[in-house]
């Protein structure tokens, strides 16, 4: 591939895999935690709900480097979670990306869920549905927005460089396979070496990857299950 200079295929494939693995895991964890969170916040009325919503949206603006530093402090051998020796591992990167992706996912999912008309929930309750039935119905109605939430979280995770550089350590083994180097942190290495074209070419791979994920998401989103809109 032109622009990629002398980077070999093993290296390219493995940094791409690490990027995919870390970001996908982070989004899955975020979804597991975040969707129930969004449902809970949207279904319940409680005092300070507006404040909670604002705090969650504020999380979308977390600077990734700060998140990286906080995770570094927590996972360092001299930090509170040091005994697990997670610093400079893909797991540490998943943790920091989860912190970054979760607020995006919850915020977007929340607004999608809240835009499902109240009439529909009332009707579902009236026709004898349990609250689980109603929740499932609402999720199905809000499907479009929820997939968008997942994609936004994915975009936040995979394009992120500040925190994964700090907590992952940008490690590549001597046989050229990546341990904690992602496409984004590989770009910083090329930039530091002054290899601007190579960096941009890696950016192209990253964009192609994001495009593929989005295409996949769009297919999933637009597939019409029975009773769905459109």
């Amino acid at each position, binding site marked *: 591939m032109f622009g990629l200079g002398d980077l070999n295929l093993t290296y390219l494939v493995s940094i791409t*895999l690490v990027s995919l*693995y870390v970001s996908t*895991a982070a989004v*899955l*964890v975020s979804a*597991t*935690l975040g969707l129930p969170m969004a449902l809970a916040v949207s279904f319940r009325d409680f005092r300070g709900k507006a404040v909670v919503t604002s705090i969650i949206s504020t999380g979308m603006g977390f600077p990734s480097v700060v998140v990286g530093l906080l995770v570094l402090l927590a996972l*360092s*051998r*001299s*930090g509170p979670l*040091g*005994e*697990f*020796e*997670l*610093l*400079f*591992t*893909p*797991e540490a990167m*998943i*943790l920091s990306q*989860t912190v970054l992706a979760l607020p995006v996912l919850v915020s977007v999912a929340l607004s999608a869920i809240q835009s499902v008309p109240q009439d529909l929930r009332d009707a579902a309750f009236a026709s004898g549905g349990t609250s689980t039935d109603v929740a499932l119905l609402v999720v199905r109605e809000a499907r479009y927005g929820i997939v968008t939430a997942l994609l936004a979280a994915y975009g936040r995770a995979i394009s992120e460089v500040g925190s994964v550089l700090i907590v992952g*350590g*940008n*490690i*590549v*083994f*001597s*046989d050229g396979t990546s*341990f904690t180097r992602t496409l984004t942190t590989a770009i910083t*290495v090329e*930039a*530091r*070496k*002054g*290899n*601007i074209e190579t960096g941009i070419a890696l950016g192209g791979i990253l964009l192609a990857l994001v495009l593929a994920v989005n295409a996949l998401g769009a297919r999933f989103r637009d597939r019409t299950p029975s009773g769905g809109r459109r």
Partner: protein
Amino acid sequence: MAIQRRRFLQAAGVGAILGLSGCTGDAEPPQAADGESGSQSGSSDGSSSSDQELTLATTTSTYDTGLLDELNPVFEEKFDATVKTIPQGTGAAIETARNGDADVILVHARGAEDEFLKEGYGVNRRDVMFNDFVVVGPADDPAGIEGMESAADAFATIAESEATFVSRGDDSGTNKKELLIWDASGVDPAGKWYREIGKGMGDTLVQADQSGAYTLSDRGTFLATKSKIDLEILVQGPLKGGPTILKNPYGVIPVNPAKYPDVNYSLAMAYAGFLTSPEGQDIIDSYTVDGSQLFFPNALSESPQFGQYVPEDYDDDGGNASASVSDAQFEQWVAENVPEDF
């Protein structure tokens, strides 16, 4: 296949950790052990790697020039180990080791290394190799420093003419050296002409090139980047007759296992031993980029070189300085290490 299984294990372990975090405290240790065994089995599955892992925090100049790609595979083969190299600036590398998150460091800022030794975080420092720094700038040399014999004078001249100067500004070894030279020049660099950019050496050179600015670079990175930029060497380092203040010595320091019992001290010592062995020194000596040698080995010496083990200002004549023969020191060892009922 093996890799994918490991990935899956890791994903499952992490999912579990994160999913349960905040639920129960005692659920955590088994999961951490899980993740560990996952990576352990993964590395023993790998082709040439084994159970031993060494975390090396190092400066970007050793990494970006490709030197470590020559050294580490040979070490890994010899010691059946895997090296995890974390390329950072010298300041960041030392900080990583100070937190106990690296086993060994390979860096180039003697002042900061001495600090690290004095605080007790590092032991058994060895000199490994050296090259030098050069002052580079645009070919038309607006401040007129070309050929100056003193780096400090060159810096003072740049400041006087307020020609743009780009500083790494990242606490790296090069940045520390630059500040040392400003100190020697008696100028406190300030003003719009002085730009701290917080980037690595390669992109600093590119930025200096783009903005027609001067900067300080290690010779290795400059040589490796030269083909992409138009900057020229205006003040040579000591390798080519320039002032000694531009010297650039590299040292290797294992992290003190008394501070962090979990560091892989024996492997760190093996690494220091390898770098300073005839074999390691030979690899450094024969490493070239575009026909230029980037680093010069200096670990081998038939006569003792005691200076490398201790901080530069260490005073051997002081009271308890010669620790091994001091009575007070010996009495302290007895008090600390020999049980009362011996």
